[in-house]
């Protein structure tokens, strides 16, 4: 490979100092957040902390900030990288020197990200992910965008011996295939599963409450809340009204939260088609750019729900091999239209034909669902009996239609289909989920059967790929064994690589 701007060891952009400094300060504050609060509170109360005067405290703080700054400068000075032939070299470390060499062929993925601070000073960070454990990834904090793009291209370019094909520029066939409009993102946010948003908010509030319980008690907020609650305990009707009010309030908050979250995460969502890869760009505060390589894709998950279907909104999650869990959730394209979805699925899975024959699980599945629901209801009744006493039947009354709808919906949405190159499995309760995997990506197949199922000659097939396992549940034993043999036959006879 001829010399290029990366063939000599270079540092990142000098703006990197600011980024490292910013990130370290942020981490510092985050780690000692509770301490800072305690600090503030006791200053507020006694105008001193651990017998130190405010002046000394400020001096200590300035000292810490200076230390972090010096650390950032040193880290910047000692961070060098370059490309030699087919290897990417990186040396880091202030006292302990680390030298990392990554062969290009081992690079799984290169992401370009831009957090809020990086957006302000106009640099991007480049993340290199390798096959292997989650720790073995490299992040260059500050690069000019064009430079980052050039580096990314060099990292991905394979050494071509014939030299002719290598000059086909990936950039030339750029085609922005899909861009999510603000309107579609809003719709996507509104039609989301708000129960999930509510769970996130609730866990956040509870987490915060436990963290600051002591301070809240000190300020007497707890008492105020209790007073407010005890006033409402006067009559049943007030309780009912306040429950309805709270429910509406919570729903509203969850909805706003969903919309804002969808908007922030997916702002300016773009799907760009290159010759070999598909690129996803998105994010408001944290801009990210990811490349998807069809050969690395293991599973596709399509999600929609009744409302979304009506609005023509589909979500496509792409599961790649060996990406860490945190990154995994970024491989999601929301607000796709039906045709766009079909196009992308076909792009990712070569000749995926639309499923013709859908098969249902056996009726035994209904029984299992009913049993699950029965156990859940039973567990829920234990606190209900304690709280309501003899009036626990109210809960039963509420639960029965819910149980019936759940069993009905889940069974209705469950299906499976096996073609000669892909397995498709449908599931879901409120959401409609479609799991697709290519047969040559299968890593292992498992037949599962409990002793109760053995008597009824029913079994399940669990199919694992490198990124997740899916289950064809509760089919006839003979059918399960046929699928099992058929899948293995295809995997073993084709001799195709899974990656």
């Amino acid at each position, binding site marked *: 490979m001829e010399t290029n701007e990366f063939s000599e060891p270079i540092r990142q952009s000098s703006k990197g100092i600011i980024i490292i400094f910013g990130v370290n300060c942020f981490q510092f504050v985050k780690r000692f957040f509770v301490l800072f609060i305690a600090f503030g509170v006791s200053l507020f109360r006694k105008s001193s902390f651990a017998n130190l005067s405010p002046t000394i405290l400020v001096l200590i703080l300035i000292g810490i900030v200076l230390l972090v700054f010096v650390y950032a400068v040193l880290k910047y000075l000692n961070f060098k990288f370059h490309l030699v032939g087919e290897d990417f070299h990186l040396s880091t470390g202030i006292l302990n020197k680390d030298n990392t060499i990554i062969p290009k062929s081992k690079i799984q993925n290169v992401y370009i990200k831009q957090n809020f601070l990086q957006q302000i000073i106009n640099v991007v960070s480049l993340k290199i992910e390798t096959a292997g454990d989650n720790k073995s990834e490299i992040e260059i904090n500050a690069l000019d965008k064009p430079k980052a793009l050039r580096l990314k291209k060099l990292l991905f370019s394979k050494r071509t011996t014939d030299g002719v094909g290598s000059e086909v520029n990936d950039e030339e066939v750029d085609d922005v295939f899909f861009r999510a409009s603000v309107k579609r993102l809003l719709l996507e946010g509104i039609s989301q599963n708000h129960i999930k948003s509510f769970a996130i908010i609730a866990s956040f509030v509870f987490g915060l409450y436990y963290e600051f319980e002591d301070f809240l008690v000190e300020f007497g907020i707890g008492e105020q809340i209790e007073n407010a609650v005890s006033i409402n305990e006067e009559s049943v009707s007030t309780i009912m009204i306040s429950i309805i009010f709270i429910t509406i309030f919570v729903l509203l908050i969850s909805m706003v939260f969903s919309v804002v979250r969808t908007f922030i995460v997916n702002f300016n969502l773009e799907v760009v088609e290159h010759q070999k890869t598909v690129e996803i760009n998105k994010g408001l505060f944290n801009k990210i750019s990811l490349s998807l390589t069809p050969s690395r894709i293991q599973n596709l998950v399509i999600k929609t729900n009744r409302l979304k279907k009506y609005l023509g909104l589909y979500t496509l999650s792409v599961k790649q091999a060996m990406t860490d869990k945190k990154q995994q959730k970024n491989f999601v394209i929301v607000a796709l239209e039906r045709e766009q979805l079909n196009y992308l699925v076909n792009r990712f899975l070569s000749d995926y034909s639309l499923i013709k024959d859908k098969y249902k699980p056996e009726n035994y599945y209904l029984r299992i669902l009913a049993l699950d629901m029965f156990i859940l209801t039973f567990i829920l009744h234990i606190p209900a009996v304690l709280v309501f006493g003899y009036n626990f039947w109210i809960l039963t009354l509420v639960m029965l239609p819910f149980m019936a709808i759940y069993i009905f919906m889940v069974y209705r949405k469950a299906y499976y289909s096996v073609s000669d190159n892909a397995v498709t499995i449908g599931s879901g309760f409120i959401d409609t989920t479609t799991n697709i995997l290519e047969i040559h990506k299968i890593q292992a197949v498992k037949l599962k059967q409990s002793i109760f199922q053995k008597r009824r000659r029913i079994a399940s097939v669990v199919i694992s790929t490198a990124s997740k396992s899916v289950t064809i549940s509760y089919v006839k034993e003979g059918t399960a064994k046929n699928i099992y043999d058929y899948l293995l036959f295809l995997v073993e006879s084709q001799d195709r690589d899974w*990656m």
Partner: protein
Amino acid sequence: MDFSNAPIEIENLPKLDDTELKLISRKYLNVIVINTLIVYVVLFSLLISAKLISDDVAIQQYFWYPFFSILGIMLLNIVLVVLAFHKRKYAVRDHDVIYSKGLLVNSVTTVPISRIQHIEASRSWLARQFGLATLNLFTAGESGSDLSIKGLPEVEAKQINDFISGKVNGN
């Protein structure tokens, strides 16, 4: 509702049912039983030492209740373990490895040899006393798709290891 697909005759495919699965070494039952017994020995010794040390009336008076319930659970556990032992079977075919286990929930897992990333034979101290080895097959998939065949005779574990290693590296 039976599964079928035109070009390939399902009937002619290599069948799971036609493959004869082999039982693992009977000696491994000793290892399992000893391991199970160790847990209960610890439990019993805790219980008995509580009786000997403590002056609490409740422990002295009701000593036999936990004693017999643990004994009962132990017997049940050992019966289950012995019955489940006969479900631990394996087979190595030309292109894949099959392992079946489980009494209450039986599972038969097959990993194609072409998907095996690496293979290792490990031997615990106890297993060594009986001349046994465990064969671990790692795939690229989640932990769910890794196979671990316990209680193989050492010689056989080595043979399978060599056979699979040869195939994996040959590709």
